[in-house]
């Protein structure tokens, strides 16, 4: 896998999350992700693997991802001035015109790809509502970057008390549903979406390579498993055997 060394242009603290910007000129599609790590010599052994992050946005040659510090990899990314990234990877959210209103549902750090997706929907004139669910107020800080979004927090500190589905209510009136968050939430969204709308889910599975080589990042589909880094991370809900 080829990595490119880039300088961190800006790092913004957004409550529990960090928004990291770096210069990237190539195309970035909503739903795509990047493997990122701190720069090594020539590779880092600790952590050894790079980490996958959805693109948060890409604007004027600057790409960004939003992340939560969970372990060693993200802690280092939260401090480094120079990082290494792959080219954008994976399948994008598919946008279809003429389906009517779209609902975007993000859970926790899974709100990340909804930013760039929302911009693309706007550009293509697709009306949409955004629903964001967080654990608590600190995690919900990023919501300020989603004007008009409905927010829910598990502890009720901000917005509706409960999950993102408590904020959204029924989804059956939407022609397209896009969602990213913990797999358990995606399963709930799939159920709530029913079968009549386009329902695209961005899944999260542990990755080895990010370029299809290791077969590590699979998700269950009817009849077997497929790699989420190549066939995903965005899947049509009905494809997933959840």
């Amino acid at each position, binding site marked *: *896998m*080829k*990595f490119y060394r880039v300088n961190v242009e800006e790092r913004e603290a957004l409550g529990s999350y960090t928004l990291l910007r770096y210069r990237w000129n190539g195309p970035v599609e909503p739903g795509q992700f990047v493997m990122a*790590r701190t720069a090594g*010599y*020539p*590779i880092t*052994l*600790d*952590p*050894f*693997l*790079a980490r996958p992050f959805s693109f948060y946005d890409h604007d004027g040659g600057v790409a960004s991802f939003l992340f939560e510090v969970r372990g060693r990899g993200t802690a280092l990314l939260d401090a480094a001035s120079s990082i290494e990234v792959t080219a954008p990877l994976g399948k994008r959210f598919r946008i279809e015109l003429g389906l009517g209103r779209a609902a975007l549902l993000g859970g926790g750090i899974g709100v990340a790809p909804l930013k760039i997706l929302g911009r693309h929907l706007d550009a293509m004139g697709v009306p949409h509502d955004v629903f964001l669910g967080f654990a608590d107020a600190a995690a919900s800080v990023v919501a300020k970057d989603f004007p008009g979004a409905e927010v829910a927090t598990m502890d009720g500190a901000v917005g509706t008390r409960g999950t993102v589905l408590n904020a959204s209510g029924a989804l059956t009136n939407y022609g397209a549903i896009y969602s990213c968050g913990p797999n358990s939430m995606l399963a709930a969204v799939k159920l709530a979406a029913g079968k009549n709308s386009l329902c695209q889910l961005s899944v999260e*599975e*542990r*990755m*080895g*390579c*990010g*370029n*299809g*080589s*290791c*077969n*590590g*990042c*699979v*998700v*269950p589909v009817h*009849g*077997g*498993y497929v790699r989420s880094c*190549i066939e995903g991370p965005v899947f049509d809900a009905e494809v997933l055997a959840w």
Partner: protein
Amino acid sequence: MVVRVQETGVDLEVELFGIPLRTPLIPASGTLSKEALDEVEGVYGAMLPKTTTPVARVGNPPPRVAETPAGMVNSIGLQNPGVERFLQDLEVFDLGIPLFVSVAGDTVAEFASLCEILSGVERISAVELNLSCPNVECGGLAFCAGASSVEELVVACRSIVGNKPILAKLTNEGVVENARAAEAAGADGLTVINTLPALTIDARTRKVLVRGGLSGPAIKPVALRAVYDVSGVVDVPVVGSGGVASGTDVAEFMLAGATAVQVGTTSFVRDPQEILAEFTAYLKESGLGASQLTGAVRSPDPGVPVPRPKPVHKSSRH
């Protein structure tokens, strides 16, 4: 390859059981997908796709991979579309270099039937037997759990694969004995080693995360030992595998006795082009051709030391 020598002034070519390889690097089976092929142009001396089995395997449920210190544990379960489909798609793996194919089955008969099928495919230059997979006829012990089982399997495959060379890929446990057995049974070369049995635990959830095979830089010293020991007792060529992460590592495996070297896990985190470039630089500094390295640590006169390369890291004085 002549072009490459002229370009760099360095002779990267090696010969593996009579097959010239333009570089001694081979992708380790199961670590290079067709989607990533365009990244590796010019790096490898032979192509080696993921192990194929008689019928499709869905593989194991996730999580399948877990990071470990300087390595990772995987439990893929040989997910693959089966040999028929594999051969239909074989063309994408044809990069104009020798094409090796890795096979595995549940029984000796399955291995043999795969060898028979492949024997008829002209484009395939050699067959690697993945002996780490469980032998269902022996209570699920791996084929390389014992020398007699290795011998039986290699004999069966050897007799049916025609004139294609066979590489027997061994695990670390019992590797010297198994290497002798494989050679005696007619293997043309040995790939040493596969992943080490390992396990990871998530202390937060108090659950097993992945039970599988350890690969990556962590296992390099174990693999080097196996290559060194095996190449000391067999006459057939040894292909090194396990933790290769740099051009120096390639040299170390060859010095230890390998004729060619597989790059696996590290290709997930590094552009293999860099590994070839480093190896080329090493050869240039040492004034040797790649093939001269094989087994050179056993030479009583190892020659002039290679000058210490200037460190990449630049000092930031303050």
